[in-house]
């Protein structure tokens, strides 16, 4: 938020809501509707404004889309724990693809190193292991990002409805509606939600210009963000960046409604489990032992 925006918003506080609406007749600025309630023309205007904003900020062309969910698609993810070696390539590919802040550092994927003897024991897990030394004997690796829960506690807890589940199962956030109260972070059992404690810094030369309104467009300080299964990619038929980069093929992704999809194959032929099943969040993110 720059000084002008702040002063505007103060003025807006003072003015009656309708008066603020008159100052901003396009409904695309501070006094606008929720993303889901916007007319198509307003969405187009907002996307155009975002592209202009990115161009000014980074001196680089960016395309901000808002492609809707495809009918007949429900995305699912399966991760093979027996293959993952903990190299963290997925973490860094995700940062670059999704324009995560480099300073302060935000990682949507967190890889935990665990002792084989203990099984999945979060209390003894280590997220700060040295990735040069992997895989360490006696250890296995558990990457965790948003589990895209069917019964998502974050969606339930948001006081303003700024986060919701899309028809294709992706839990998204409207960064322009989020008030930054962090209820969703308290509610998430997987530490999947991240807050912009400061204005995020993304180097212009590393900016990924292919953006989605609900995904990897550059965030502002004071809002929450999280993995969207690379919404900007998967809705145009591409794999998420983490699936593409994984050197050992531990990551499988696809349409749960398509009987021929890779993820469906895993569900049929392997035995899968979900994290913290006792919390009844019913994730669309499965783990399995492929070997």
């Amino acid at each position, binding site marked *: 938020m720059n000084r002008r925006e702040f002063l505007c918003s103060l003025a807006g506080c003072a003015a009656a809501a309708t008066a603020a609406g008159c100052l901003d007749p396009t409904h695309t600025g501070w006094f606008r509707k929720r993303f889901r309630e916007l007319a198509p023309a307003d969405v187009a205007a907002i996307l155009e404004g975002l592209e202009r904003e990115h161009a000014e900020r980074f001196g680089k062309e960016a395309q901000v889309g808002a492609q809707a969910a495809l009918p007949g698609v429900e995305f699912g993810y399966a991760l093979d724990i027996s293959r993952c070696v903990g190299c963290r390539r997925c973490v860094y590919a995700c940062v670059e693809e999704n324009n995560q802040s480099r300073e302060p550092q935000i990682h949507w994927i967190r890889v935990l190193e665990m002792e084989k003897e203990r099984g999945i024991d979060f209390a003894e897990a280590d*997220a700060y292991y040295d990735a040069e030394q992997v895989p360490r004997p006696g250890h296995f690796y558990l990457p965790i990002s948003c589990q895209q829960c069917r019964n998502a506690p974050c969606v339930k807890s948001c006081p303003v409805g700024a986060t919701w589940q899309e028809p294709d199962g992706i839990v998204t956030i409207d960064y322009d509606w989020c008030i930054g109260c962090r209820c969703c972070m308290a509610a998430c059992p997987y530490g999947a939600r991240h807050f912009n404690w400061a204005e995020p810094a993304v180097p212009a030369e590393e900016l990924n210009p292919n953006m989605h309104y609900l995904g990897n467009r550059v965030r502002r300080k004071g809002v929450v963000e999280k993995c969207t299964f690379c919404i900007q990619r998967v809705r145009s038929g591409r794999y998420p960046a983490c699936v593409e980069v994984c050197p050992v093929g531990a990551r499988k992704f696809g349409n749960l409604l398509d009987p021929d999809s890779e993820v469906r194959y895993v569900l049929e032929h392997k035995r899968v489990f979900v994290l913290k099943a006792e919390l009844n969040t019913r994730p669309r993110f499965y783990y399995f032992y492929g070997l």
Partner: protein
Amino acid sequence: MLGLRNFGHFLAGSLRIVLRGGPVYWTWLGCLVLLIALGAGAYARQLDRGLITTAMRDQVSWGFYIGNFTFLVGVAAAAVLLVIPAYVYNWKPIKEVVILGELLAISAITMCGLFVAVDIGRPERFWHLIPGPGSLNVPSSLLGWDVLALNGYLVLNLVIVTYLLFTLYRNRRPDKRIFTPLVLISIPAAVGIHTVTAFLYNGLAARPFWNASILAPRFLASAFCSGPAVLLILMQILRRTTRFEIQDSAIWKVAELMAYAMFLNLFLLGAEVFKEYYSDTEHLVHMRYMYTGVGAHDPIVPYMWASLACSALAFLLFLLPRTRRHPLYLNLGCLLIWVGVYLEKGMGLVIPGMTPDTLGEIYEYFPTWNEIALSAGIFAVGALVFTLLVKIATRIMLGEFRLRPAGGASGAALPTAVPGVS
């Protein structure tokens, strides 16, 4: 129309009252204004740089602000609950107890609102919480419910206090048909705000430390200790500095009730400690973080033991009739209770609930100076609001600030006795 004009006089006269005072009054106000300026500076810094000026991070995403908020909701709730013993024991100054309790509630809710406001990342979007232009997510979001409950409670208390004071100002007796139902609504409302606030934590299955049914009862028990502690001290100050009459027996009775509340609070804590330590599941780690530390991570351990010691000592002081009737021990007990509950709610609820985080990581949260300065500023705002309101209310209750019977100018001193039982 006449009522409206009288109300105008009432407001103007109130303004004159707060602008008059002795050196102690002005020094006190000066200190508060200084603290508010300090807090405003800290907030400006936070707005400019973001919440990175706090010690909160993704692992511990709520901290000192939300802890203070929770503590103050308790103060607001308990202040009004004092109405119950005032009626049951038929204390002489019932209306006065009601008014002082509600003034404290108004000040506490003001601070609650400010603590939430400084905690959110995008304060300029607060209007998203207003049903209509915004999109308040009720019934599913507990924070949504809390917004409704706290604002409703604030309005209710403002209406009651304004009605009572304005009626007294006009030398009339409060109409029981209006006054009694409002007070009767405010009692369940007081329980309600603290219960909803407890549910805000309680409903999060991701956080086993909070996801225990004992949380809401514990909130109420601890609030019933901290809220009256402020009022006890205030009553003694008013008794000494004005002609305000408050019976010793009322003060001692409040102290006795606080002892029972503190017993319940300590008992419920003991029940939790037993369950966690005996069953020794993975959830124990949060309590260990509070009382023994986990490995080398023990930043809040001394505060938690201090809280326990203060609470236990205050319990004993208020339990024994000899000590609770002794002016020194009575006030020491109030202070100990305040500190004990403040540490318990401010540090002992939010921080261990989030440490270790949901993936087992321990991040040692401890508030930064910026957070502490900002919080001090908010407490100063609350103290300022409370001071000004109490000053006006006392003058009215003592009959020193009343409408002249002829109507017209206000501020005339009338030799009226302290109004008794309504």
